[in-house]
């Protein structure tokens, strides 16, 4: 359809999710505004068997087999199962767009990929021999399995891309999707992130890094971004997917438009493989670039969905980066840390929070941050606490921050559409 250019407006026409708060986007959003926490004690036998130091997480609210067929569950790793559920919802929500398959793309991020399949099949090899390794092991464990299966499901042929940048993956995928549309490669792209990595190895690995909260006796209050007593993140799982579309294509088919995907900024810290750069230089560059790329100015931004994972170092580094990027203008940017409710969905986090940012702009209400008893004095931001905050009328824009191990920084700019 359109040849695409840097002037091509990209809009968001469909949303889908499966999360610790709900099996779909509306349920998740409603629970989020209500301040619900998705964290709970894990009942699996492996918690005790391996004496895991962390015994809780934020598993998906609605089991995948309620949305998928028995054969789909058998042939897809949880990582791809969640992506399929969220993509199908987003596609329906967008009104099942009629689009030339060669103009339809997919971009889905994941932090870890098909880790359940990888390790289950390794067990099969060791315990039963090579003949018992499932013939679909490789297509299930490969990190692009979710992307490939969604492309197959929707008949998308413009290109199907997998972004792997740890906890920035989902947001980076959405940025890439917008670039595909602006450069003229696609009219419609299904984009987001997925993660199904609540495997004992991942718990043990993140715990060994001292990255996870150890508040085992009180999971519901463990994820507490910006609180002085925060002690690490709470591992979650799920997927968040949006349908991005050129404005021209969306208008031609009379689609409902949630918001404009106005721009994105990306940078790399090159500082440390896991720790954020403490001055927030890289994170701040991603934010200012997102605002510039969107053709906005700092005063247009009236809300930030922060990365804020509830780690002692990360939360204050991001707060410093926001000040560094926007100075006094940050006073007018009330901040939500939604991981206080969803937990940290790793490679899906940036995508899900991108969806939250879209809905905040669309409904003009920003979700709360829960579990702050004592705000860390080093966090010099207007943090939205406990109850949602109404956002102003007129043209508004909001940012979503996502950062990942490896030093990846991604900021998305979402603008109201009229």
């Amino acid at each position: 359809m359109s040849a695409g250019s840097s002037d091509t407006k990209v809009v968001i026409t469909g949303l889908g999710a499966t999360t610790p708060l709900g099996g779909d986007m509306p349920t998740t959003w409603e629970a989020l505004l209500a301040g619900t926490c998705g964290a709970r004690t894990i009942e699996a036998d492996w918690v005790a068997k391996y004496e895991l130091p962390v015994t809780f997480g934020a598993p998906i609210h609605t089991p995948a087999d309620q949305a998928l067929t028995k054969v789909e569950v058998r042939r897809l790793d949880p990582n791809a199962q969640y992506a399929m559920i969220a993509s199908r919802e987003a596609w329906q929500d967008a009104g099942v767009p009629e689009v030339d398959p060669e103009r339809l793309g997919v971009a889905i991020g994941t932090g870890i990929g098909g880790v359940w399949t990888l390790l289950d099949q390794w067990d099969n090899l060791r315990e039963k021999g090579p003949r018992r390794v499932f013939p679909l092991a490789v297509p299930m464990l490969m990190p692009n399995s979710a992307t490939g299966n969604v492309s197959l499901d929707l008949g998308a042929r413009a290109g199907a891309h997998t972004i792997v940048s740890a906890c920035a993956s989902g947001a980076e995928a959405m940025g890439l999707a917008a670039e595909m549309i602006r450069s003229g490669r696609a009219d419609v792209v299904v984009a987001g992130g997925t993660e199904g990595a609540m495997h004992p190895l991942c718990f043990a690995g993140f715990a060994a890094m001292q990255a996870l909260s150890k508040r085992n006796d009180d999971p519901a209050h463990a994820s507490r971004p910006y609180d002085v007593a925060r002690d690490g993140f709470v591992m979650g799982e799920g997927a968040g997917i949006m349908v991005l579309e050129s404005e021209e294509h969306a208008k031609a088919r009379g689609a409902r438009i949630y918001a404009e995907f106005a721009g994105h900024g990306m940078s790399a810290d090159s500082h440390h493989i896991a720790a954020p750069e403490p001055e927030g230089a890289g994170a701040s560059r991603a934010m200012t670039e997102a605002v510039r790329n969107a053709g906005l100015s700092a005063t247009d931004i009236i809300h930030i969905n922060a990365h804020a994972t509830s780690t002692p170092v990360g939360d204050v580094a991001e707060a410093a980066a926001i000040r560094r990027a926007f100075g006094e203008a940050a006073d007018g940017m009330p901040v939500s840390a939604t991981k206080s409710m969803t937990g940290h969905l790793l490679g899906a986090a940036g995508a899900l929070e991108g969806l939250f940012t879209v809905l905040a702009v669309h409904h003009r209400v920003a979700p709360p941050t829960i579990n702050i008893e004592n705000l860390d004095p080093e966090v010099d931001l207007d943090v939205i606490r406990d109850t949602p905050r109404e956002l102003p009328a007129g043209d508004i824009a909001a940012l979503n921050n996502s950062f990942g191990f490896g030093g990846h920084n991604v900021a998305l700019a979402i603008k109201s559409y009229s």
Partner: protein
Amino acid sequence: MAQTEQEILEGLANIVNEETGVDVADVQLDKSFTDDLDIDSLSMMTIVVNAEEAFGVRIPDDEVKNLSTVGDAVTFIKNAQA
């Protein structure tokens, strides 16, 4: 542990159903795995691996291409069990 042809067919039909979603009732002796049941070679291997475990037999990779119908598979498994 030799089984009757009917027992093997029922067991195989359940495996085919579990791996591919094909209706148990459609898995009949005269049906071709590829032409009638639309089962690709990768899915065929998942059936073979599970059939080996379920029936306690070995189905060599070279033999799989000769199993074009459900009946071929049932006969092979029955002979291998004998």
